[in-house]
């Protein structure tokens, strides 16, 4: 058996809180810095949350290239859906380390993301994260983050123009 990295829930929580803060503050380049070179970011469809994006139509299925392109887009003043930028507030809780295999920790957490924008109703994106976190030394990187929405359909959540 290979040496498994020791990582505590508190360390993971600190990391996830820091990530949430970067996203809430629109510090998207710094957020990109948390990702591995082959990271992916996924939002499965409401009616097939367990689907695989190779044969299921997702809401978001970004590989690292597309996630970088998404950040570039969101930083542009021509990303009309987020210009002016919405305000968001992320609540992360129920953080659990489900397994650690080699240097990859599988972590789940619950989220509530409130999104506020002028002239728009408040949106509450509620769901759970499934993370694959690569832990090397004291350093944590995101290899995969999946945001699974609890809503039965997006409906009043409209489009998903922010990073969940």
């Amino acid at each position, binding site marked *: 058996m290979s040496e498994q990295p020791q990582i505590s829930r508190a360390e993971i929580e600190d990391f996830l809180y820091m990530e949430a803060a970067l996203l809430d503050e629109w510090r998207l380049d710094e957020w990109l810095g948390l990702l591995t070179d082959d990271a992916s970011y996924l*939002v*499965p*469809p*409401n*009616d*097939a949350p367990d*689907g695989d*994006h*190779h*044969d*299921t*139509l*997702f*809401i*978001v*299925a970004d590989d690292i*290239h*597309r996630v970088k*392109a*998404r950040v*570039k*887009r969101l930083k*542009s003043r*021509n*990303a*009309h*859906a*987020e210009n002016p930028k919405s305000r968001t507030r992320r609540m992360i809780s129920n953080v659990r380390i489900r397994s650690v295999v080699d240097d990859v920790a599988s972590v789940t957490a619950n989220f509530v993301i409130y999104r506020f924008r002028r*002239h*728009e*109703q408040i949106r509450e994106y509620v769901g759970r994260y499934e993370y694959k976190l690569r832990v090397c030394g004291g350093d944590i990187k995101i290899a995969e983050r999946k945001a699974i929405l609890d809503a*039965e*359909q*997006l*409906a*009043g*959540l*409209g*489009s*998903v*123009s922010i990073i969940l």
Partner: protein
Amino acid sequence: MDTVRYIIDDSEQAVFKVHRSVFVKPEILEQERSKIFDRCWLYVGHVSEVRNPGDFRTRVVGGRPVIFTKGADGEIRVFLNSCTHRGTLVCREREGNAKTFRCFYHAWSFNNCGELIAVPGEDAYGPNFDKGHLALREVPRLAHYKGFYLLNFDAHAESLTHYLAGAKEYLDIIVDQSPTGELEIIQGTQEYDIAANWKLLAENSFDDYHVAPTHITYFEYLKDSGVNVAIPKGLLMPRHGLGKALGNGHAVIDNQTYRGRPIAYWMPMYGEEAREEIAQIRAELVSRLGEERAYRAADTNRNLLIFPNLVINDGSSVTVRTFFPLTERRMRVTAWAIGPVGESATARARRLDSFLTFYGPGGFATPDDVEALEVLQQGIATWKEVEWSDLSRGMTKPIEEQLNTDEPHLRAFWRRWNELMQTD
């Protein structure tokens, strides 16, 4: 009585205007419900969604909850999802397979052909109680064109084939993309609201005038990924095509692709390894359809609107999208991806990936469309002062020369809408 005309349509003067009250007045929506949604053919689902006897999907179409299902007898039906006893929904699942629909309230049971098969305590009913007359009610009309099922709440409506008019030819080009002629809806539904009047999405779905300015970030993304796309001066589309009325309010824009098509036009985003398979897909099209029609299927995009609210966009992927008004200023959109039955796993994954670059609530383009329609809706709260919207682009040209960035297709929608709204 309304004293304001809904549209001004003057070909001579090249003037076409729509009165903005039609997007904000609840009375207009009331009329649309009876004059349009109760009379036009409305999309309910695709044959591939009810493959096996017992398969069902519950949906809301034209404001009514319905069950789209295949009976044990192999027949596809659409039932009104309402118990004939007192009205309860008999099926509350999104989808599944069922031999019977059992209403939980008093436990009447219907089989998947609609027949009422069990009534607890039946002996308490009188001699006029006839289970044969209490079957689940079917929608008045149901028909399909090449697997696309549409229903009509008007028993006297013209046939679907007749109704579809010139739109059939465009559906054919999409169906032809499948070697077997069979398509399937791919798992994963995008269902989202837009806080705007439903007619704005009918317009937006094939408004190519907005594409360059609204979707600048999409073009930048294409460019960064290696697609040779220059945004021309004046922010019009990279390649011109045509806008066309197809009869009965249906219309289309039709242009040569400037990006990639999973069937069958390679772009760098698909990766070098995809070149060969795409070439094979194209070769199959050529051998089956001939060079000219293969060019249509592989190299040209189309956004098709089937009046009033079915949109099939065949561009970076093929999407089937329908939308209904919830109120005069909010709509619910439902969108799916569709592809050939038997498509390889790699081609299917590419189709879905290509879909997400542009379309959908998390795509690089659709969220900006949603934003455009929502801020338009906010802007036209001024409709009493700023009364008219302009849709006159290209009107000075002969009809067959009007472009996708002109607006003949939008005018076709509005002319039909206006015609139906003038009926009793």
